[in-house]
């Protein structure tokens, strides 16, 4: 009995020591994290033009100024909504086309880089690395270079977003493909179907709902991206926002109109896409 008691005592000691050690490590990790955050914010504040504490009072100044001016010209707003509708449509179109084209490229890339489905199994690493590369290049880089070559307008933004989308969706699609059942593919192969037929008839029906769900999510992201790219100089409502802001006072009713349009658009696409994604994934 004393043996058993000693055993329990030993186990207890052991357990407590381990728990304490774990706590210490957790504490150290937390401390390091807090220090990193604090020093990071201090550094960022040092290198910023205005400090955090001076700025925080002004945080509402600009929105207040904009809103009060817009309130005085509230009657203009409906007209401005109509005025900016074409550029909003352009922004949405950029997002839609780039999701579409990027998605189609992603389908090809993902099929070519999934084990068991690839047309040339030896080239799988090549396609995977190229998708990594496409994902890694931020859209703004491609957009700015293309603006230099193609001039302004929606096309540079479209190509830039499509390029990035192809890489990002390609990776997600190939993860979906990996879970596809290979039996239909084998069955089709046994009756002499070509690679294209095997993919189209054997794989696509299995994975299409998941592909579509990811593509919808991407579309949502791309609407935001296309607004931002407009701001750095290539078409759409972002560009109008930039011009209105540069004009400054006197055009704040336009700024607020664009803000509202953007907000509504993003919320609508957010809600619709999450609704349809839920339906697609849970199986209708």
């Amino acid at each position, binding site marked *: 009995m004393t043996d058993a008691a000693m055993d329990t005592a030993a186990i207890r000691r052991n357990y407590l020591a381990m728990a304490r050690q774990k706590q210490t490590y957790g504490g150290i990790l937390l401390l390091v*994290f807090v220090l*990193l*955050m604090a020093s*990071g*914010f201090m*550094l*960022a*504040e040092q*290198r*910023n*033009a*205005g*400090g*955090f504490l001076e*700025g*925080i009072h*002004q*945080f509402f*100044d*600009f*929105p207040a100024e904009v809103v009060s001016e817009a309130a005085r010209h509230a009657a203009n707003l409906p007209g401005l909504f109509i005025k900016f509708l074409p550029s909003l449509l*352009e922004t949405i*179109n950029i997002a*839609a*086309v780039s999701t*579409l084209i990027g998605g189609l490229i992603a389908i090809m890339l993902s099929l070519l880089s999934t084990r068991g489905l690839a047309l040339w199994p030896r080239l799988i690493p090549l396609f995977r690395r190229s998708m*990594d*590369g496409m*994902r*890694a*290049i*931020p*859209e*703004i*880089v491609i957009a*700015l*270079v293309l603006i*230099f*070559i*193609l*001039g302004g*307008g*929606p*096309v540079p933004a*479209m190509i830039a977003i499509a390029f990035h989308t192809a890489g990002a969706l390609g990776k997600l699609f190939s993860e979906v493909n990996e879970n596809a059942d290979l039996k239909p593919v084998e069955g089709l192969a046994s009756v002499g179907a070509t690679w294209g037929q095997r993919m189209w008839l054997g794989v696509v029906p299995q994975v299409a709902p998941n592909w579509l769900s990811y593509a919808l999510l991407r579309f949502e992201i791309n609407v*935001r991206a296309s*607004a*931002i790219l407009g*701001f*750095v100089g290539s078409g759409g409502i*972002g560009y109008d*926002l930039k011009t209105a*802001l540069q004009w400054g006072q006197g055009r704040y009713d336009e700024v607020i109109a664009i*803000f509202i349009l*953007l*907000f509504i658009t*993003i*919320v609508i696409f*957010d809600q619709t896409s999450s609704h349809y994604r839920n339906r697609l994934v849970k199986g209708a």
Partner: protein
Amino acid sequence: MTVATDIADARRTETLAAFGRKRLVKMAVPVAILLYLVYIAFAFDIAGLAARARGDNVKVLLSDFVSYKTHVTRDNRSGAVTVAVEGEAKGAWPAGRLPEWISVEGDATRIDLGRGHSVVYEGPNARYLHPQYGEIAVNPTEDGIKVNLPSEPAPDWINASDTRVTVTTGQGRFSFTRNRTETFRYEYGWELFFFTLDSPFSGKGPGELLALSLWGERIDPARPNIAYMVSEFWTNKMWRHGDVMWAMFETVLMAFLGTMGAALVALPLAFLAASNFAPSRAIRFAMRRLFDFVRGVDGLIWTIILSRAFGPGPLTGSLAILLTDTGSFGKMFSEALENVDNKQIEGVQSTGANALQQARFGVMPQVIPVFLSQVLYYFESNTRSATVIGAIVGGGIGLLLTQAIITQKDWEEVSYYIVLIVLMVMAMDTLSGWARGKLIGRQA
């Protein structure tokens, strides 16, 4: 029996109709996509694109990516000859040391352009020696610039008038005006990437540099050669490696502070927004709408508002990321919290734990892996966003990149930044994948 065949027939037509519908839908999707693309082709004016595209810009871009030019300029008023990379003062060759393809004898400067092409400045006159065409002599006179060609008419690569003569060949470019005579010589590579010409280390091979750094005599007696070398590289005036690295660090810093800050802010708020933890329905509703609002306003608008308040810089960028992601994290965290298993919480509750302890020991262990993986994923994707936000708020590598692109001539710097950004994003990708594996265990 007829009834049976009738039923079979009805089934048949039904199935065929279903097939037909399916086929129609299958056809309709590609047709719809095609129609949409046609509409876009008109809306985006793809046809006019070819006219607007500037082929010469492509040439400038590609040649600048892989090569650079050295300007050999003679000021025709003072007679002084300067040799400078890209014609910039910070790339000027020191007077006593010239590249081997230039030789100076008294008043004559001879520039070898390779493949038999050469240019000679002789006093106020200049000659371009073309191996096939012959000698193009240019002399300034009282009534304009006179050109002597070996054969008339002048080929289209020579452009001559009374005030300006230019010769453009595959080997280089030569121009003559009353004020100055200038020759461009193109060479492959990124100029002066390691050391500028005023540095004592410029023009030395790797072996020589290694020898200098390890056992060579000290160039600057105050410090070892290797330290001198690193500082010369770091402060390189052409490429500003030090500043570029700072900008990269700033970009990662923005992403880090924004993501982690957002996660910290969103964590308590998510409890208020989760149906199984919210103290009241009203609070839950308010929290959800707050998350939707913050997400809906979007990073772009937050960035604009914040840069008005805080001015340009990395803090503004961090706060913009923080605000936008608070919405996303709040939504995702509260969804994860709604899916926790209640048994574990009840177990902790049965030991007499209060609400905070229940959250710490009953809930957190269940949701931490999900949260961490989402946070790490966002951290990685925010490194990319921080580049764009940096371009708008004026901080980090995004700012350098847009500045370099706006000048429209330093494309080699643009390509340098692009390479660095891609490497940074890939490194973050690997790092976050590794951290995810370490923290929450490998999940296929």
